[in-house]
């Protein structure tokens, strides 16, 4: 991410913060729900979209983060401590889940994460001292850096701030040796190994960093919903997150945010439409079907997701409106590149 993009990102974040007080409670709620999901989707996109390790236990990992943050917060710690603690705990669990990836590849590893998801769900019900079993763990509001921000607008500010920090951090990470190794392993593990990359260690780093972000996202989820219960972190949530990064764009940072917004807001929109026509229950039932259909359509027609669709539209607009003489060459090569990628 260039300096310009960072500035744009921070400006957008500040704009959101400024608008927040005028949004009302529902508006603020939408902002933080999307921002929290975006952090989670970013974590998963780092693992799947950049390092090529398909995972179906992201929902479970968010749960680990939620329980960890809840317990630390309930022990009277600051929310910042709770979130960082949740990140560290989840990173550790994520690395454990990633260990089979040292032996298994592709779909075989994906199956092992599916197993991990079910084990986590089981543990959430089993370890009652920490999770309070099926009834769920109630979470007390915690101060943020000593400030009382435990209201919808406060949560929105924290979530947006954290999202911006995560986006900048991940984009910079991708421009380090470690980030380049992630991409190399995704493109070809055999080539990476041949070039002398320590594939095992690199993969575990991907799991650790992705787990850290997932833990923070899960922790925020816990504080905002004030409860962590096992049924919130089931396989359906994992599938939702995979849907987010496929719809948004595998291996794209804006894609994680776009996909999260899409997947989170679609049910809200569906409900509104349903309410208008007095058929809320029917549209709610349609949700899963629409997601399934969307994933299939995107995989077939736009594997790089909404983000690629958007950037191509922008490019086309620029080409038709901009001065032809000095734009011609660059857009022609851009087009070639897009075609080559497809």
């Amino acid at each position, binding site marked *: 991410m260039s300096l310009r993009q960072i500035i744009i990102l921070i400006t957008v974040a500040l704009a959101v913060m400024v608008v927040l007080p005028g949004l009302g409670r529902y508006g603020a709620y939408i902002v933080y729900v999307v921002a929290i999901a975006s952090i989670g989707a970013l974590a998963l996109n780092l693992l799947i979209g950049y390092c090529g390790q398909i995972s179906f236990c992201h929902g479970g990992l968010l749960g680990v983060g939620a329980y960890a943050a809840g317990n630390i917060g309930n022990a009277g710690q600051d929310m910042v401590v709770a979130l960082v603690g949740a990140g560290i705990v989840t990173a550790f669990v994520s690395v454990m889940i990633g260990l089979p990836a040292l032996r298994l590849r592709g779909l075989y590893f994906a199956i092992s994460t599916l197993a991990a998801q079910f084990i986590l769900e089981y543990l959430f019900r089993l370890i009652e001292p920490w999770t309070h079993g099926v009834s769920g763990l109630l979470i007390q509001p915690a101060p943020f850096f000593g400030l009382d921000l435990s209201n919808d607008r406060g949560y929105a500010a924290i979530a947006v701030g954290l999202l911006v920090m995560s986006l900048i951090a991940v984009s*910079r*990470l991708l*421009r*380090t*040796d*470690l980030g*380049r*190794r992630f*991409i*190399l392993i995704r*493109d*070809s593990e055999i*080539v*990476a*190994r*041949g*070039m*002398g*990359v*320590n*594939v095992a260690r690199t993969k575990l780093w991907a799991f650790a960093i992705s787990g850290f972000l997932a833990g923070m996202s899960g922790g925020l989820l816990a504080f905002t919903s004030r409860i962590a219960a096992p049924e919130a972190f089931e396989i359906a949530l994992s599938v939702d997150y995979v849907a987010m990064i496929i719809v948004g764009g595998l*291996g794209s940072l804006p894609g994680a945010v776009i996909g999260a917004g899409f997947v989170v807001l679609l049910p809200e929109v569906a409900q509104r439409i349903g309410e208008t026509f007095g058929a809320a229950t029917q549209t709610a039932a349609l949700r899963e079907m629409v997601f399934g259909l969307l994933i299939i359509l995107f995989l077939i027609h736009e594997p790089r997701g909404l983000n690629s669709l958007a950037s191509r539209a922008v490019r086309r607009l620029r080409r038709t409106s901009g001065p032809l003489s000095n734009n011609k060459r660059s857009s022609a090569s851009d087009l*070639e*590149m897009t075609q*080559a*990628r497809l």
Partner: protein
Amino acid sequence: MLKARDVTVRFGGVVAVGGMSIDVHAGEIVGLIGPNGAGKTTFINAVSGTYVPTQGTISWRDEDIVGHSPSRLARIGVGRTFQNVASLNDLTVLDVVKVGRSVHGHSRGLREFLCGSRADDEALTERLLEPLGLADHRHSPLQMLSYGHRKAVDIARALASEPDLLLLDEPVAGVAPAEAFALAGFVKQVRDLLGCAVVMVEHKMDVVMSTCDRVVVMAEGCKIFDGSGEAAQSDAEVRRVYLGD
């Protein structure tokens, strides 16, 4: 420096390399030639950690390296290039070269994370990409490059780790003659500069003759000749292997 003794690689019943021995000294460019199927690439793979030899010993600077992984070998200064170059989707030429550099050990991860790498990019471009004619392509994804350029990127990637032993597997195969000589010339320059040892598997005899200090000829998994290029051309056994009885 590199000492291989009686190296044997078997795949089931097939003996790809059978009792190959070779010594390579610092600052030397050795051409490893031989007909197709002679076991040249298999031998290189055994040295670079891709295969584990069934039998025999390989040592590098008196350290036994049999069974070392490529990443461990990279850290002690053994680098290699590949016969078939990878077609990677998103990584640019500079990215690949940086990955190559990073395997040598010292990571600059944190500094890059905090400060970016622009100055670094320029230094790498000047040192490795300019001489290989890749400077203009440094921000192109690998798959946009021609075959010859990709071969050059692979060499730049291997050189970026500043190896003390460089194993080149057909570095100029399929590359246009003029480019081939330029690549070979660069390998020679690098050797003069770094003093590294080079083992080069190659079929193009004119390139081998003009680049290598010594030629080792393999046939059917064994070494049949070891000496100067001129002597190889007049050796009866070599002529028999290449031209038939």
